[in-house]
């Protein structure tokens, strides 16, 4: 088979690709490698180690893995992803998309508009709105619930940022699932209804098998986004006493506020590895699904 479809020849083909490769090298590959290198040194923001960093080997990694603060951050991050992305955004997004399916007219437009609004507002604006909502003195929520003086951000910092991120990110899942549900043929749902299937059975037998690929893709994207999300820092700054310090906050506070750039780089690399594991697991599930489909057709 002729692999040179465009008929350019190797030399000219390389010339076309080269500018893009250079950009990728400068802005993606080099910083990644630089992070790996930094992670092996005791590089600091200021002082002697900033001028003349020494290679400390795996010292940063063992220190991070042994650090209780890191372990707690990792656990909080897992809670954050499970609570706000998997259960919150995906669950709520699907529920809204399912309820709104087949609906037209003002109700659908208003619901979609409201959900989208929370997604398109700038982070800093949204953070300010939530601080105003949850404020202890005269916060909107306390006024609505009649609980003056309840310090939501101090008493329930994780719950606050989980609800916040659910509210903020549901739009994406809702739109993705709404599009996926459009692909479920009405006749399939009606066949199930004629057989007497309940809503749960319709979801299990008709809808979920049909949109499995969309679900996995959505999970992959929102898990990664949520795991790396820094926006809630604007609300709790990781506090109080680090009780909402998810991993991105931990990196930020240790590397930039604490000045331990080498240590921060090592933790960043660990986060990268965790992301990679997430991504590979989802991609594997997606591949299995594709293989099932191919076998079904073959």
């Amino acid at each position, binding site marked *: 088979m002729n692999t040179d479809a465009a008929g350019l020849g190797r030399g000219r083909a390389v010339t076309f690709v080269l500018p893009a490769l250079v950009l990728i090298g400068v802005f993606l590959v080099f910083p990644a490698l630089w992070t790996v290198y930094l992670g092996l040194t005791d590089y600091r923001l200021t002082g002697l180690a900033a001028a003349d960093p020494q290679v400390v080997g795996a010292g940063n990694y063992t220190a991070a893995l042994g650090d209780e603060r890191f372990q707690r951050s990792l656990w909080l991050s897992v809670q954050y992803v499970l609570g706000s992305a998997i259960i919150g955004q995906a669950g709520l997004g699907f529920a809204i998309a399912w309820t709104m399916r087949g609906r037209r007219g003002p109700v659908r437009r208003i619901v979609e508009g409201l959900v989208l609004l929370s997604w398109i507002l700038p982070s800093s604006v949204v953070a300010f709105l939530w601080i105003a909502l949850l404020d202890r003195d005269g916060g909107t929520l306390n006024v609505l619930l009649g609980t003056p003086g309840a310090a939501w951000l101090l008493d329930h910092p994780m719950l606050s940022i989980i609800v916040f991120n659910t509210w903020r990110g549901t739009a994406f899942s809702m739109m993705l699932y709404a599009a996926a549900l459009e692909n479920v043929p009405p006749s399939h749902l*009606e066949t199930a209804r*004629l*057989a007497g299937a309940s809503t749960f059975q319709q979801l299990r037998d*008709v809808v979920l*098998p049909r949109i499995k690929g969309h679900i996995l893709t959505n999970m992959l994207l929102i898990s990664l986004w949520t795991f790396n999300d820094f926006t809630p820092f604007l609300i709790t700054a990781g506090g109080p006493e680090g009780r909402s310090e998810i991993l991105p906050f931990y990196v930020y506070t240790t590397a930039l506020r604490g000045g331990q750039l080498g240590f921060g780089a090592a933790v960043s690399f660990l986060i990268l590895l965790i992301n990679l594991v997430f991504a590979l697991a989802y991609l594997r599930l997606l591949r299995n699904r594709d293989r099932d489909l191919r076998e079904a057709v073959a």
Partner: protein
Amino acid sequence: MTISLRGLTKVFPGGVRALDSLDLDIGEGEFFALLGPSGCGKTTLLRTIAGLETPTSGTVAIGGADVTALPPGRRDVAMVFQDYALFPHMDVTANIAYPLRIKKVPRARREAAAAEVAGRLSLSELLGRRPAQLSGGQQQRVALARAIACRPQVFLFDEPLSNLDARLRLEARTFLKRLQDDLGVTTVFVTHDQSEALALAHRIAVMDAGRIAQVGTPAEIFRRPATTFVASFIGSTPMNLLPGRVAGGTLRVAGAVLPAPSGLPDGEEIVYGVRPEYAELSPIPRDDAFAGAVTVLENLGTSTLVTLEGGGQDGDLLVQVVVPEGEEPPVGTSAWAVPHTGRALVYHGDRLAGPG
């Protein structure tokens, strides 16, 4: 089971009146066709019987029991959709057994039932396959098997043959008719294809704009269409419908003088209907024939459809005649179309006034 519909009206949001106070009775074991052009409400009617649409007013009774308020799953009806609606992730056995699974029939019993029905529809070799691995005709049989396996009181088919290619359609038609005969279950199907309705059904309801224009056996509908709408809709070549007038006990239609049915007052406007098959061509002028020039010849295989242009006062009337093989007139010559008066239909005020 009998089906009876009383005063059925369905108005969709936005004001579209798909069904307009419609009454209909379908007998026990009948193979019943709902026929009409697209948008006439036939599919809405079928879906209302299934319970997938809720009527705005009126009642649906199956086997004498009012089911208007029952959800589709409790009406004991099975429907085969135009796209067959097979579940792509389930194999043939699981697809056929699906309604039984919902009814909580134990796995062994429902798989045995699926295998039995599949055997009847010559699907035994295909039980382990997925729908994507089946041909269109096989998919249709799986959809039928799924409907049969749960032994419903009524079958509903939505355009059952329209997704098959032309040749397979004829085979499937014969198959479907025999299957319905064997099962003896009341069956309602929707079609826009008049030949399908004529070939399959015991009785046909021709629908127009949410109302029933005529109900009858295929022979009745073909021979005596009650309105000009039914007349123009039924028949593989459209019926000639020519405007005319009653004059002195005869009909004056497009230059021809034809016998009039009794009871029509002088001077009334009528529409004269004659099928192209029930007319013949004469090469010489006649008083009881429509004159015109041969403009188009369409080969129908064993016969040819001839179009004459130039009848009537304005000379713009078209008359079509089917002539047997080998008797086609040359294009451009003059010819006279002679209707068989015994087979012609006279419509007065859009109602059948009698044969001409």
